[in-house]
């Protein structure tokens, strides 16, 4: 019964959608302080390679590998965050895109460690680790009427689901707090928030580091989901893909990039054509969104509308007269 409902292919698709949600949130966090970073493919690759190398070459347990990879990437993010403070808007975007490319080229050329352009194979697979762990506890998928590959896909999906919910929960909580208010005010007016007593250096670096940590975390998960990584997985098309989650879905509220990630990763599954012309469509989307809805599809108004369909809006009267006498 259960075994007929579980299609490993769909579960895998759903798992990668969850991974994309985490990536979407990672760029949203950094954007939350007004910093547009296109380095998230680079951060993702740092996480992926760190965990792959640790687990493969040093026999570090998978969970520990992922955690170390995420923290290490966050640390790199903080280091990059300092020079990033000096750059604004499109200059920051270009510099971080360059950072991602530098990392990619570094991974291609550091053959001793990364196996160069060929990439790393045989990375411990999250699903199989879960399977062998449960078998060591005396459990076998057959006991609940599942084939091994069904169980593996289901377990991986559930793990990713719990992680994604945890990540979303974490950042919703953070945004409804003193930290979130500081982020929001910096995004709206950096100088004014500084004058109101907010340490903008700290918060901008915090946001940059958190975004990097999350991207590194997603990268490490990616390595253990695919068991194979190469530098070409983290090229600039990936950076654009992550960006488009936030641009298309929206970057005002966390639901924006989540919606963007779900929608844009699901569509190609339904329409093969989209898959072929994916990056052309992304490009067109970027242009269209910038022209017609720069805040993305899901903004505060949409969220309010969903939450309170009949909210009464209080409009203030606008002041009259401009006086400047002496």
């Amino acid at each position, binding site marked *: 019964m259960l075994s007929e409902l579980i299609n490993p292919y769909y579960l895998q698709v759903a798992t990668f959608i969850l991974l994309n949600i985490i990536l979407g949130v990672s760029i949203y966090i950094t954007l939350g302080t007004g910093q547009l970073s296109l380095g998230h493919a680079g951060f993702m690759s740092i996480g992926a390679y760190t965990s792959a190398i640790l687990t493969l070459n040093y026999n570090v347990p998978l969970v520990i590998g992922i955690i170390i990879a995420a923290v290490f990437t966050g640390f790199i993010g903080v280091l990059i965050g300092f020079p990033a403070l000096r750059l604004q808007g499109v200059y920051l975007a270009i510099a971080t895109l360059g950072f991602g490319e530098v990392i990619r080229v570094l991974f291609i050329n550091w053959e001793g460690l990364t196996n160069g352009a060929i990439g790393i194979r045989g990375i411990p697979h999250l699903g199989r680790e879960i399977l062998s762990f449960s078998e060591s506890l005396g459990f076998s998928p057959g006991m609940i009427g599942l084939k091994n590959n069904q169980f593996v896909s289901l377990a991986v999906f559930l793990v990713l689901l719990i992680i994604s919910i945890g990540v979303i929960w974490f950042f919703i909580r953070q945004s409804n*707090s*003193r930290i979130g208010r500081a982020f*929001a005010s910096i995004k709206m*007016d950096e100088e004014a928030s500084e004058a109101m007593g907010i340490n903008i250096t700290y918060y901008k670096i915090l946001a940059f580091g958190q975004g990097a940590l999350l991207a590194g975390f997603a990268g490490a998960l990616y390595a253990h989901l695919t068991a194979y990584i190469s530098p070409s997985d983290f090229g600039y098309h990936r950076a654009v893909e992550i960006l488009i989650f936030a641009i298309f879905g929206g970057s005002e509220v966390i639901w924006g990039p989540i919606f963007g990630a779900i929608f844009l990763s699901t569509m190609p599954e339904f329409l093969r054509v989209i898959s072929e012309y994916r990056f052309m469509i992304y490009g067109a989307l970027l242009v269209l969104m910038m022209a017609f809805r720069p805040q993305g599809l899901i903004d505060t108004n949409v969220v309010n509308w969903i939450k309170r369909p009949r909210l009464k809006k209080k409009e*203030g009267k606008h002041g009259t007269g401009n006086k400047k006498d002496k």
Partner: protein
Amino acid sequence: MVLEIKKISKNFGGIQALTDVSFSIEQGEVLGLIGPNGAGKTTMFNMITAMFPPSSGEIGFLGQSLSGLKPHEITKRGICRTFQNIRLFSELTVRENVMVGNHCRLTTGVLQSVFRTKYQKQEEENVLRNSDEILEIVGLSEFGQTIAKNLSYGQQRRLEIARALASRPQLLLLDEPAAGMNEKETNDLFDLIKKIQALNITILLIEHDMPLVMRICSRIVVLNFGKKIAEGTPSSIQNNKEVIEAYLGVEEEDELA
């Protein structure tokens, strides 16, 4: 003495915005800072709040030098300002704007915020209460949930003051708070400044509305072309020849330029 400005000069790549300006502010007073357009008044605020470093000179606050501090550190020390060209967080609600102003008096960090410790909850309750109290003072209680940009001009000016008050300053810097206000709003502003003074907060006021300045300030400092040209009581300033000339001379200067 709350604030002591010692020979502050500021040069913006050739433009001498301030030249050796010195004055001081006594505890509890409302000191007016006036002068024609471009006299350097806002620049003086930017020096006090460390938005820019002075080219030379020093500023002392409650007996300690402010040199080398960052703007947010100045705010924490107890000086907060409003902006001449309103700079609210326009997409946040009125109440959230005030809560941001309270930021430097709070201590919860990321983990406490996410895991909602008892201390964090208590602190958030206090922030809400403080903000509502301050909105009450400035008369914006009923607009707490309004998005800041939807307020009228005069209300936005008062929200700027509320946001600054939330940082619990000892010295409040107001940059043309009456600009764009009608007569009734200006009268309300007068009452508000009196109320703030009664809270034992010292005020430095930049304002072009002379009747308001004369009515509310205990002393006035006059700047012209970045130099202090007079200092004294409202009546002595009103009768000061150099001050009158500075104000009348503006048109002449404009023609020359």
